[in-house]
């Protein structure tokens, strides 16, 4: 009988009631009396020198309150990068200034030059058209390998080159890896592109700045995955506002996928301008602005080599990647191709020697940063593609080749600096073979062939590092913040509970799953528990939601706080029951004395805490509220095996996904239904990357895919019904819930299986195609078949 309360129950998402009935309160729903509207005049060229910005005529337009330009922000801080990467030679990365409004030059299409604040949005937009720009166009550098050439146009004149860093990992392994590849019985080499993506959350970014002159207090409402991080970055580094004078509120947020982690210029602008003008200032991005101002994802160009011995054991991996940073360093941009990518290059395999080289390049394009999976999809894709290519070259079964090289003993220290605490990769592959009905594939292929279609099967494993991250470790690696999280469990007098959590829910279902954990611990209905999130004024602290960390890190903090609450409530119960606290047991919402029939209800104890008439005041304080901070001991390592079956129409090259199966090991699962949904969504995004999505610039830096007319998002009929399973569970060994995280798995695990499947289909039709770069559009597949 499935549970209907607590851990393991598929409780319905309580937040969906307001979302589905139109009662969600998003940032754009916030309107403050007297608010003004800002429109940003953005560059329509990728690279130009700003000679002059003449705002005189525009400033005289109706409703205009003030026009800001780069000059207004010269004394304001640079938008910071949160992670300093050290290069192969021990030098810090090159870190350019990122002004709130461009001053000397514009460096990508969409770079804001001026901001018009007016009584209405239309007035602001009208006035922006009257601003006279005097720009001198400069040649744009778009291609990363061009950007790397000696004498290339520089995106930042004050840097020595367009190279942000040249990172080697593990540098000490370099010679040994080179030697192992030279000596290998077989080396498979693959060059590939991990295509640039636009995150495209349903809700575009919005910011509302407000300023209370009487208290000198700022409030920023923003579409953020992590309001405390915004408070830290904007308050400390950009505007110089101390924490107690700056409140950041991220109300309902309509999807983030990574792109709402970062601190953006528009947030700083609205906060700054609200104080300057003593009126609230609101900005709502249009979808067109989102395409040219939201940090984009992926964009790696990689060469990977896999060395094998005569028995097909992996002996070494060497990769060289060019990673696009865009024109400026976004908040976590530098960490994505390095610590979130290089550390995952071992995958699920016991390859003894690995060397990862990453050259991060500045180009005249929109900044690139974390997007669902962030570095881990890039690692998984190249590894699982090169393994598939090796299996084909060697004529061995791709599943058998993977199984032969799986890590089987845990903990396992990889040659790329991380230690997998637990896992069972054979178990997920076994489960995959079952749910994907791999035995039936040959029959299905024959059916497809009878219809004139080519059918292919693609398999891959994946591993990811989630629950980011141990603060002391990431500090050594260059993170400029700790990555713990915090929660306060506030028990009210009648026994209901509010939990203030540092994680932010923007689709993940925290409002449902977090109460399930507390309900399980105390033995009360979930309905008695609510969580509060997204407001630095109401929650103790928190580093937010990304990297599948919410439950593993913030959930652990919540458990620790709840444990403190339970310990205290047992003391109160012991007093009421005239027993020793050590003898008190809490079960099903009742405290009892072990071995007796004496018991007291949860509600009676919580009432006693707030109405302490009969209470051990000499020993313990009244009230029942506890806070805990939790810093994880390690990353968590979700892993799994995915299978995709495609049909390719040989006449047109069109790929149709016929079946998709995912066997994941997420450790313990709190709400199976929500986990299913997370995997479904992740796979849809992975299929989007593999078949449809492509953020493309022309040579001059104009975005070719700047709207949904050209940027193909996956639609419902582009994806199949999925078979997903997460019954293989090796609980995380170092957090109290034994959970690993599930938010990114689908997006990490699915692109290689889709591409592997298409390549398999083409080979079945006699087309010896080694690789096609994503997205595998019909035109690209057809060209590969006919070249």
């Amino acid at each position, binding site marked *: 009988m499935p549970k209907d309360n607590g851990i393991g129950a598929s409780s319905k998402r309580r937040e969906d009631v307001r979302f589905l009935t139109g009662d969600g309160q998003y940032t754009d729903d916030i309107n403050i009396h007297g608010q003004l509207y800002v429109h940003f005049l953005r560059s329509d060229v990728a690279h130009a020198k700003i000679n002059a910005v003449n705002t005189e005529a525009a400033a005289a337009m109706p409703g205009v309150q003030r026009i800001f330009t780069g000059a207004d922000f010269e004394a304001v801080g640079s938008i910071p990068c949160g992670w300093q990467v050290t290069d192969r030679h021990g030098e810090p990365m090159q870190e350019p200034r990122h002004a709130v409004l461009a001053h000397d030059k514009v460096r990508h299409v969409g770079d804001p030059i001026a901001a018009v604040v007016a009584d209405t949005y*239309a007035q602001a*937009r009208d006035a922006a*058209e009257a601003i006279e720009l005097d720009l001198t166009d400069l040649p744009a550098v778009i291609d990363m390998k061009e950007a790397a050439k000696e004498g290339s146009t520089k995106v930042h004149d004050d840097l020595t080159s367009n190279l942000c860093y040249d990172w080697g990992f593990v540098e000490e392994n370099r010679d040994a890896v080179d030697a192992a590849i030279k000596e290998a019985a077989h080396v498979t080499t693959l060059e590939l592109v991990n295509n640039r993506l636009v995150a495209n959350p349903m809700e575009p970014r919005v910011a509302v700045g407000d300023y209370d002159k009487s208290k000198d207090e700022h409030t920023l409402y923003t579409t953020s995955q992590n309001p405390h991080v915004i408070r830290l970055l904007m308050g400390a580094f950009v505007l110089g506002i101390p924490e107690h004078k700056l409140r950041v509120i991220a109300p309902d947020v309509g999807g983030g996928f990574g792109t709402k982690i970062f601190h953006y210029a528009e947030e700083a602008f609205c906060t700054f301008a609200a104080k300057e003008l003593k009126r609230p200032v609101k900005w709502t991005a249009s979808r*067109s602005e989102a395409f040219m101002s939201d940090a984009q994802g992926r964009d790696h160009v990689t060469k990977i080599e896999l060395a094998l011995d005569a028995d097909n054991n992996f002996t070494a991996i060497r990769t060289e990647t060019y990673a696009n940073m865009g024109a400026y360093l976004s908040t976590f941009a530098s960490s994505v191709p390095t610590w979130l990518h290089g550390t995952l290059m071992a995958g699920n395999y016991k390859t003894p020697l690995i060397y990862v080289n990453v050259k991060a390049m500045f180009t005249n394009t929109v900044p690139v940063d974390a997007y669902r999976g962030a570095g881990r999809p890039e690692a998984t894709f190249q590894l699982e593609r090169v393994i598939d290519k090796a299996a084909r070259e060697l004529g061995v079964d791709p599943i058998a080749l993977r199984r032969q090289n799986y890590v089987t003993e845990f903990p396992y220290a990889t040659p790329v600096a991380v230690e997998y605490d637990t896992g069972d990769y054979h178990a997920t592959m076994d489960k995959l073979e079952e749910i994907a009905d791999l035995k039936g594939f040959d029959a299905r292929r024959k059916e497809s062939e009878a219809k004139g279609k080519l059918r292919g099967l693609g398999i891959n494993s994946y591993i990811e590092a989630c629950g980011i991250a141990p603060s002391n470790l990431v500090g050594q690696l260059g993170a400029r913040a700790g990555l713990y999280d915090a929660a306060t469990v506030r028990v009210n007098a009648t026994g209901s509970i509010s939990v203030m959590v540092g994680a932010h829910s923007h689709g993940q279902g925290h409002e449902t799953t977090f109460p399930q954990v507390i309900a399980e611990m105390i033995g009360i209905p979930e309905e008695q528990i609510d969580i509060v999130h997204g407001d630095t004024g109401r929650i103790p602290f928190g580093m937010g939601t990304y990297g599948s960390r919410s439950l593993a890190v913030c959930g652990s903090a919540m458990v620790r706080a709840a444990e403190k609450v339970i310990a205290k409530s047992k003391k109160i119960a012991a007093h009421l029951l005239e027993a020793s606290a050590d003898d008190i047991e809490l079960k099903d919402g009742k405290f009892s004395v072990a071995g007796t029939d004496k018991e007291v209800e949860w509600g009676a104890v919580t009432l006693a805490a707030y109405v302490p008439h009969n209470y051990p005041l000499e020993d313990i304080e009244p009230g029942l509220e506890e806070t805990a901070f939790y810093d994880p001991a390690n990353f968590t390592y979700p892993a799994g095996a995915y299978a995709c079956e495609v049909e390719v129409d040989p*006449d*047109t*090259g*069109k790929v149709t996904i016929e079946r998709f199966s995912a066997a994941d090991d997420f450790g313990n699962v709190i709400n199976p239904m929500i986990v299913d949904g997370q995997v479904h969504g992740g796979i849809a995004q992975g299929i989007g990357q593999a*078949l*449809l999505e*492509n953020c*493309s610039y022309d040579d001059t830096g104009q975005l*070719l*895919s700047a709207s*949904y*007319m*050209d*940027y*193909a*998002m996956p639609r419902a009929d*582009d994806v199949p019904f999925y078979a997903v399973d997460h019954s293989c569970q090796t609980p995380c060994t170092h957090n109290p819930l034994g959970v690993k995280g599930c938010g990114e798995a689908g997006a990490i695990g699915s692109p290689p299986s889709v591409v592997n499947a298409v390549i398999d289909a083409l080979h079945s039709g006699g087309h010896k195609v080694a690789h096609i770069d994503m997205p595998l*559009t*019909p*035109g690209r597949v*057809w*060209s590969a078949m006919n070249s």
Partner: protein
Amino acid sequence: MYAFEIERPSSIADAVAALKSEEAQALGGGQTLIPALKQRLAMPEQLVSLAGIPEMRGVCKSDAGELCIGGATPHAVVAKEAMADFPALADMAGHIGDPAVRNRGTIGGSLANNDPSACYPCAALATGAAIITNAREIAADDYFQGMFSTALEEGEIITEVKLPIPEKANYQKFVQPASRFALVGVMVAKYADGVRVAVTGASENGVFRWSEAEAALSADFSASALDDIKTSADGMIGDLHGSPEYRAHLIGVLTKRAVTAAA
């Protein structure tokens, strides 16, 4: 969007009069014009909506065997009402855009805009339709004059489209995955006096007739009749979604499929 005035005439005569003003622009279903206005890519001072003119709406069959469609008839209405007499056209109309587009967008608007990837121009050309305006009747062969270019004069309104109903017909649309407009679309229409083949989405000159295929199919209405006919990539559109060579290839594939489906 810039500010503009809107007129809502209830007769063709009133609409024509309203459009005499130099600053006026006709508004059909608005599925192209409204997004352009929102992007501030157009700045008309006055829009003249053709949506409220009863004499421009509806579908009927003429005694001469033509399907007659009022210029302001939405795609969804055509999808339903053409089903009995011209199922290939109904099917085409039922797959334009999404339900919102089909309930607002009109055949007259589509033909007046002549987007190189639109479906209706393909149907009009493949059937040799007559484009009826407030002033005259224009043969489809004379009407389409290249990408976004037509024989319409300033202020001229498409009031009706008369499409000769073919014996057999089929439209094959291979969608561009983002917009779901036609990357290439082909309509094949077989009449007693011959076969017409029109292609949309592919050419830099907009919709066109594929005369070699017409000749071959008029002699032998089977897919194999096309086996030895190749289309050239010269003049084909090349973009993010497909090269000129790919589009040229798709024309052949889709034409064969249309013939097979129609036969």
